[in-house]
Each structure stands twice: as structure tokens, then as C-alpha cells.
């Protein structure tokens, strides 16, 4: 197809360029015009980070071919603060603390701008619906709603413009004050550059070949056809690793690219650096890999049986880590108990879904220092590991942490930085890799799914006499943070309660599933879910209020934990009192009394949503069309 002579007005300036007709508007704006304020979060119309105005209408630019915007007036996030001054809405985001990682924020600001343009008097519930197409993974949205309401009120004169400025602290005491976030202006304006927004002169683009199999032996990798392709500057596989290959947070069991074997679907096998991403992608398709499929194991319970496939030689029972905690004698404790409960709890794998997919750049600097720029949550450890892997002294390896568009633990693993370093070394040119959303989901760590059996023995007055828990957790194909997750899960499993007899076992297991890794609240979420759920059952059975049963067992100042650590001050009672008071909790046993409660539906509770109710006319119109 011939190139398109594209003409449009972008942020008030005339633009005339040739473009590929099917190029996405998003890429044209970001790559050709270097307007990187609007981001790509999903490339599929699902997240809203790419939202721009086309002839005044909010559009997801990842779904729009540039040809469709021919002759249009296009506004990106950069348009809103063109004069250097933030718009009222941007200032309100700044003031309200509505940005965290900031990656969703340019799209969110565009959507919010559209919302109050459409209805300058929109109420909170309407604002929520109008922002329904934009995902934010960090903020929980509340401060975003606050910001939009604040901007609306300033625009309507209900609030003075000064409501948006900083309150001056008296006498320089800045601790405990709501100082506005110093990074907010760069985020609400789209000025901040994440790794995927950065370019370097002479930079190559990287694409990765990933495993289609869950478990297979790699018989051969033939990269010759890929290497011959015009525009390809370098192809790497595990054979190109000069040092001791292997990374991980606790055990270095994962090679930079599959070595001899693939252990999960999506595992990196080879990578290509080429003049542009499309060429790199074509070259990836030309890499020929011969596999011999191996029997695979997908269930962590099965994985611990004899005679099943073994994932890693060092762990012949497929157990990555087992953490035991023992206090007293649980069997004796159960025998002494008035009530013994038993239940199984299960939690699923979930995805971090940070809005910024993985991205990074690498180059070798004039002094021969291999440098990697990426949103890594742990550059200190990554530098150590990479130095060993590429066989260089630590001083010849440098990691720079770029702004992180959401991490939640998911960016602690050195899952792609090694490939970047190797390609920069091989091509002697800067290289950049930007994951697609799909790549990010299939190839990076998840929260550990778990199956937990819990037994709890209690006395009639609610005191817990014994607690026994066993959690089996699927760590997937590589160790990553499994060991640490099992440890934290175990230490915190029995909750902040004084219990004389405790037996806890958390076991992380290798399977051929997507690896599990660090995820905000790191194992404690799984085990405390079980314990806190069972305490509610116990309270019901014993006719106790759920706050009361916790107070009966609560650790107090000077308590000893289940790992036999003596604590100082313990704030649990204060937290229980505060939550009970703030929610005006009506006392009573948790025996499904919901219908009879008198503490429901206060004014600090949001109204329930009935979808579409507020946009009846618009919906009807759509239905009629």
C-alpha cells in the first residue's frame, strides 16, 4: 500500500508527513511526532492510556488508523498545558494527589477533560461512568474522582481558584502535611519519560522469540535466516551468554534465555535487534527452533509425587521452598479446645497489570560500561547478577532505574534486562525493547495461587488454643521470589494473635505454569485471608462479635510472635477500636444478620451502581441505531 500524505492539525500546529495508512494514530503521534505524553497500556482499546481528542471527540488512539484522522484537529495531553501552565483539571489532579505511578494519568486527564466538557455539572456518579473506559491500577480512583469534582467546582465558581494551590506550612514543619506530590506536574502533563518513551540516537529495536510449549527440550536453534534479513543487527540465544547464566531473587535458576529446555509458555528463547521493530519481528519469525516435547506438570500437588517430571535438578521433589513454624504442640491444643474448625481456602493467580508494560534500553558507554535503563524495582541486585552473567566486573555494569509505571513487585525480576545487555554488547549500538501487553502478561510473574488447609481450635470464650495451617503454592517454572513469599506467608499466617500452639507449613512448588513471584503483600494476603475468614466462622459459632473475638486474642504490647520475637508496642487494639468506631459497627455475632443491621447505608457509603441508569437516553439512542 502506498504511503499516505497525512495532514492534520496536532496541538494547534499544522502537520504534513507521509505515513503508513494502517499505522496506528498512537504510533504516529509517539514515534513520528515524538509526542510521548499519551501512553500505550494495552494496544487493544481496553485501558484508555492512549486517549486523545480527534476533532474534539475522545478517541483511543491505539485503535485508530492514522488515515482516519486525515485533516482532523488532534489534541494530545501535551495540548492541555501548552502555555506552560497546567489546565484547571491538571492542577486539580496535582492538588488532590490523584497521580501515583502516573502512567494512566495522561489518558485519565483526557477522559476527565472530556467528562466535564460534556457536562460541566456532572455529579460524582456520572464522573465515574464517564471515566469507566480508563484503568488506573494504583490509585483506587478515589483521588481521581476528588480531582475531577474539584476542577468542576473551580470552573463553576463554586470553589475559588486558590483551592488548587499549595497550603504553606508554618515554621517549616513539613512532616505530617499534605504537601503536593513533587512528581505530579510531570505526570499530569505527560512530560515524564518512562523507558518506553525514551529513544537514543542510532538505537535498535528488540523483539523476543518466546516458547509455545510448557515443557520441551530445545534440540536446536537456527538463527541464520534471521541474521541474513536486511536491517537485522544482532540475534542472541543462550549460546551468547559469556558468564554464569542464571538469575532469580533467591535462587539463580532462570537463564536469561532458555538454555537447553523451556519450562513455561512465553519463556524467552532468542532475541533480535534490528533497525525497526517490524524487521525485528520478521526476523523472530525466521528463527527455527526444533523442540522435543517433554511431559509437563501443572498442578502443585501432583508435582510433589514421585516419578513426575522434575523441573530443576537441584530440587528433585520440585519443592522450591518449605518454611515451617512451630510453637507448642498443636495436637494437644486441639484436644484441649472446645471447638475445632477445619476448612480449605484457595486463592488464584493474578496479574500485576501495572499500566506500564516492561520496557528498557541498554547501551555500552564509551568506557565500556554496560548500561541498562529500565523500570526495575531492584537495580542493586540486578547489577550483581548481570555482572556475573556477562562476566564483567561490577564496576563495568550500570543500572539506571527509569520512572516506574506501576510495579507492585512485578518489576523485581530481571526478566528482560539481560537480553538488552547482551544485544547492546553484540551490536555496539543502543537497543530498546518494549513489551506488548500480551507479552507482559504471558511472560512475567503472577501472584502465587494457593491452596490452604486450616484447622483452628478455640475455647468457648473465643481464645484460640491451636492453629495448624498448610499452604501449597504454585511457584511456576522458576524460583523468582517464591522462597521469600513462602517465608512471609508463614511468619504472618496465624495473624496478630496470641496462640500457644502453632504449626505452619508453607510450601512453594515448581510446575510448568507461568512463574509466580513478588506481588504486593507477598504471601501474607493468602494466609491471612484464610485465618481472618475462619475467625468469622469461629465468632459465629461461639456467638461472639467479630471484633470481640479478635480482641480476646489480640497481641498486646510486649507480646511474643509465632517466630518467638518479643514485640514492643502493638497497635492492633487501636486499629480495631478505630475501625469499629469509624464504621459505627453494630455489635453482634456474624450470623448473616445483614438484613437486620442498623449500621448500613450511612453517608460514608457510596450508592450502588445500576449500570446505564444515568445514561438512559444515550443508551436508547445507541440501541436504536
Amino acid at each position, binding site marked *: 500500500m502506498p504511503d499516505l500524505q497525512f495532514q492534520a492539525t496536532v496541538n494547534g500546529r499544522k502537520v504534513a508527513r507521509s505515513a503508513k495508512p494502517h499505522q496506528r494514530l498512537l504510533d504516529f503521534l509517539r514515534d513520528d511526532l515524538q509526542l510521548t505524553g499519551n501512553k500505550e497500556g*494495552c494496544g*487493544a482499546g481496553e485501558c484508555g492510556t492512549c486517549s486523545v481528542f480527534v476533532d474534539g471527540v475522545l478517541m483511543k488512539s491505539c485503535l485508530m488508523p492514522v488515515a482516519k484522522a486525515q485533516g482532523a484537529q488532534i489534541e494530545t495531553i501535551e495540548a492541555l498545558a501548552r502555555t506552560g501552565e497546567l489546565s484547571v483539571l491538571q492542577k486539580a489532579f496535582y492538588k488532590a*494527589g490523584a497521580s501515583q505511578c502516573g502512567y494512566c494519568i495522561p489518558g485519565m486527564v483526557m477522559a476527565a477533560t472530556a467528562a466535564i466538557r460534556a457536562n460541566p455539572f456532572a455529579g460524582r456518579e456520572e*464522573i465515574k461512568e464517564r471515566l469507566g473506559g480508563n484503568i488506573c*491500577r*494504583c490509585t*483506587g*480512583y*478515589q*483521588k481521581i474522582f476528588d480531582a475531577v469534582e474539584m476542577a468542576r467546582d473551580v470552573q463553576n465558581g463554586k470553589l475559588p481558584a486558590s483551592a488548587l494551590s499549595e497550603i504553606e506550612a508554618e515554621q*517549616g514543619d*513539613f*512532616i*505530617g502535611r499534605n*504537601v503536593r*506530590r513533587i512528581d505530579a506536574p510531570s505526570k499530569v502533563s505527560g512530560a515524564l519519560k518512562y523507558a518506553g518513551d525514551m529513544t537514543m540516537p542510532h538505537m535498535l529495536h528488540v523483539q523476543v522469540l518466546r516458547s509455545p510449549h*510448557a515443557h520441551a527440550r530445545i534440540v536446536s536453534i537456527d538463527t541464520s535466516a534471521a541474521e541474513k534479513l536486511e536491517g537485522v543487527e544482532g540475534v542472541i540465544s543462550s549460546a551468547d551468554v559469556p558468564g554464569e547464566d542464571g538469575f532469580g531473587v533467591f535462587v539463580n535458576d532462570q537463564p536469561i534465555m532458555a538454555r537447553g529446555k523451556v519450562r513455561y509458555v512465553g519463556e524467552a528463547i532468542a532475541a533480535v535487534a534490528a533497525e525497526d521493530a517490524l524487521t525485528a519481528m520478521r526476523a523472530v519469525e525466521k528463527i527455527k527452533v526444533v523442540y522435543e516435547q517433554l511431559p509437563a506438570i501443572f498442578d502443585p500437588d501432583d508435582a510433589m509425587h514421585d516419578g513426575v517430571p522434575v523441573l530443576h535438578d537441584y530440587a528433585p521433589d520440585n519443592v522450591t521452598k518449605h518454611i515451617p*513454624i512451630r510453637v507448642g504442640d498443636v495436637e494437644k491444643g486441639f484436644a484441649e479446645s472446645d471447638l475445632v474448625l477445619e476448612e480449605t481456602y484457595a486463592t488464584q*493467580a*493474578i496479574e500485576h497489570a501495572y499500566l506500564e508494560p516492561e520496557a528498557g534500553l541498554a547501551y555500552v558507554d564509551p568506557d565500556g560500561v554496560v*548500561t541498562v535503563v529500565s523500570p526495575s524495582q531492584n*537495580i*542493586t541486585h540486578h547489577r550483581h547478577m548481570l555482572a556475573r552473567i556477562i562476566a564483567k566486573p561490577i564496576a563495568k555494569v550500570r*543500572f539506571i532505574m527509569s520512572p516506574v509505571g506501576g*510495579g507492585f*513487585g512485578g518489576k523485581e525480576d530481571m526478566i528482560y534486562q539481560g537480553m538488552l545487555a547482551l544485544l547492546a554488547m553484540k551490536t555496539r549500538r543502543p537497543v530498546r525493547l518494549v513489551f506488548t*501487553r*500480551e507479552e507482559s*502478561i504471558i511472560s512475567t510473574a503472577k*501472584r502465587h495461587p494457593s491452596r490452604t488447609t486450616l484447622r483452628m481450635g478455640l475455647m468457648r470464650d473465643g481464645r484460640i488454643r491451636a492453629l495448624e495451617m498448610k499452604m501449597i503454592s504454585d511457584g511456576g517454572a522458576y524460583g523468582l521470589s517464591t522462597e*521469600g513469599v513462602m*517465608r*512471609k506467608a508463614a*511468619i504472618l499466617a496465624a*495473624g*496478630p494473635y496470641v496462640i500457644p500452639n502453632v504449626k505452619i507449613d508453607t510450601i512453594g512448588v515448581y510446575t510448568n*505454569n*507461568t512463574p509466580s513471584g513478588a506481588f*504486593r*503483600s*507477598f504471601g*501474607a*494476603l493468602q494466609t*491471612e*485471608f484464610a485465618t*481472618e*475468614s475462619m475467625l468469622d*466462622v469461629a465468632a459465629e459459632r461461639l456467638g461472639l462479635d467479630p*471484633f470481640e473475638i479478635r480482641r480476646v486474642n489480640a497481641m498486646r504490647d510486649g507480646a511474643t510472635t509465632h*517466630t518467638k520475637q518479643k514485640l514492643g508496642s502493638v*497497635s492492633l487494639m*487501636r*486499629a480495631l477500636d*478505630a*475501625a469499629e468506631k469509624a464504621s459505627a459497627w453494630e455489635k453482634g455475632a456474624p450470623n*448473616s444478620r445483614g438484613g437486620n*443491621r442498623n449500621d448500613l*447505608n450511612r453517608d*460514608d457509603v*457510596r450508592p450502588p451502581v445500576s449500570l446505564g441508569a444515568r445514561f438512559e437516553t444515550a443508551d436508547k439512542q445507541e440501541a436504536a441505531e
Partner: protein
Amino acid sequence: MARKRGRGMAACWYGIARTATVDRAGAWAEIDDGGSAKIVTGVTEIGEGILTVLAQIVAHELGVKPADVVIGDNDTARSPEAAHAGASRQTYMIGNVVALACREARARLAGVMAEVWDVEVDLIRTGNGECWAENTNHRITMGEAVDTCKKRGVVPVGSASFGTDTTGLDPSDGAGRPWQAYVFGCQVAEVEVDTITGEVQVLAVWAAHDVGRAVNPKGVEGQIEGGIVQALGQGLMEDYKLRDGHTSTSGFAKYILPTSLDVPRVNSIIIEDPDPIGPLGVKGIGEPAMVPTIPAIMNAIYDAVGVRITSLPATPERVLGALREKQRLTSLQAAE
């Protein structure tokens, strides 16, 4: 009535900073020309607001304004190690070490000013961009104070290291001192369950969390609100599905995330039980904020409709299935 309301609660505890290992962080500080501050430490914002927290701490410690604080990039070749961005450790480890580094830099400056003004060093005060000596008329800007130091050959710099007194766990019974700072929290959730569709809406969460000392209360709220919504996602909708190692949820069309319409009104209550060990009393909030949310929601579902969801997520299908099972058991009992 098809829609039923209920409430549930749950508590939590959590350890701050790295687990069952010695944690550590380093920082450099300089009171710079014009009375600004230059801080270099291995930290980058991952969204939690650490840069703002550090600016406030620096302003508090040095007597400059947060807007005059410059924080250097996190770069293994240019900044001291502060280890990683995770484990709810940033305010605790890096906040504390930056405070210590600032104290050293400030002591240098105060020493010079005490000499110049011929007063005891502990009478030197700094605050909000100014430096003065208590009970005297001496008062100059921080910019002037830096200038005075430099004319006497002193650059007001400081550095510090902050480490934890922690141990590993005994391999047989788990005994050990995994953290030196613990936090506690409690949440109440109010839900509405549609008994026809099985859909659960979380309408409100009251969240009380100990953070030691809140440097920026709005930032703490932001962490609590974001944590609760992530937990709500896991509790009600998110599910990374695998079949024979292949996922069917590789995009946001299939992998469902909480949107603006799903979120509860979050009412945060910040509790401050200062950490006695670190110089600032701060602890952390990133992770603990999401720990009690799921059990509080599941307990609220039970309160509303009498079914216990023990396997996550509590999707409409799963809630409906549990309701049907409950109905079956009740009619069986009635028949007996």
C-alpha cells in the same frame, strides 16, 4: 428483595522492610547553593510518593522548603545503594537514612554558624529556608548560611547508612526476628449482593492502619485506597487462567480489572504508633493496606446472604453457585 446488604471485618499485621534478613540503605545529602538541598540515594518513585516523602523529610531536617529539594536519579554508578523498591520499605529504610544523612550535613552547617555567631551550636536553628540563633538577632537565609560555610572552606555534606537488627528464621521451628517494625490494621467492608445475578458490589471500606508516623497523610490514603482496590480485584474478579500452561487471559478484555464503577468509598483512619528505632518514627503502608480487604469482603458477603466464599475470586457465578447450594441444603433440611 434481590439485593442484600451486609458488613464484614478483618484485621491484619505486617512486617516493614525486608524479611528475615538484614536490610540496609545509604544516602548522601548536601545543603546546596541558594539554600537548596541535593539528595542522592538509590531510590526512584514507583508511584507510592517516595520522592515527595523524602522532600518533606529533607525540608524538615534541613530547614529548606520541599520545592527546593533535588533528588538525584537512582543509578548504581552514581548513587549509594538503597537496595530495592518493595517490601513496604521505602519510607522506613530510605526515609530514615535520608534523615540521618541530612542531620550530618546540617551539623556541619550549624557548626560553622555557631562559630561565626559565637554561640553554642545547639542554639542554631534552621527552618523554612532560614537559619538563626535562638535568643539572638542573628537570622539569615539558608542560601546565605551555605555561602558563609563555603567561604570558610566547608561544604555542608553528610552521608548515612541505616540497617536493621534482624535475623533469619530457624530452619526447624521458624524462630527468629524477621522485622524490627510491625504494623497492624483493621478494615470493615459493606457490600451489596444481587441474589439474582450473584454480583457483589463493595460500597464502602473503613480502613484503620498504623503507619508509625504519616509523613504525607494524603499519600498514605492513596496507598490505602489503591491497595484496597487491588485486593477487591483479586477478591471479586481478577483471575489469571491457565490451561496446560497456556493462558486464556492475555489481555484486558479477558483479564478483568476494577474500574471506576467498581470501587468502594474508602474511609481511611491513620493510626500513628511511632517506631522507636528509626530516627523518624515512620513505618510503612504499601502492602498491609490490602491484606484485610478480601476477608472483610468475604465476611460481608456471608453477612448479606449467608454463603461463605472460600475460593477466590467471588465471581457472580461462584456466588450464585453457593447460593443455590445453600438453598438445596435448606430444602433438604426442610424435607427431613
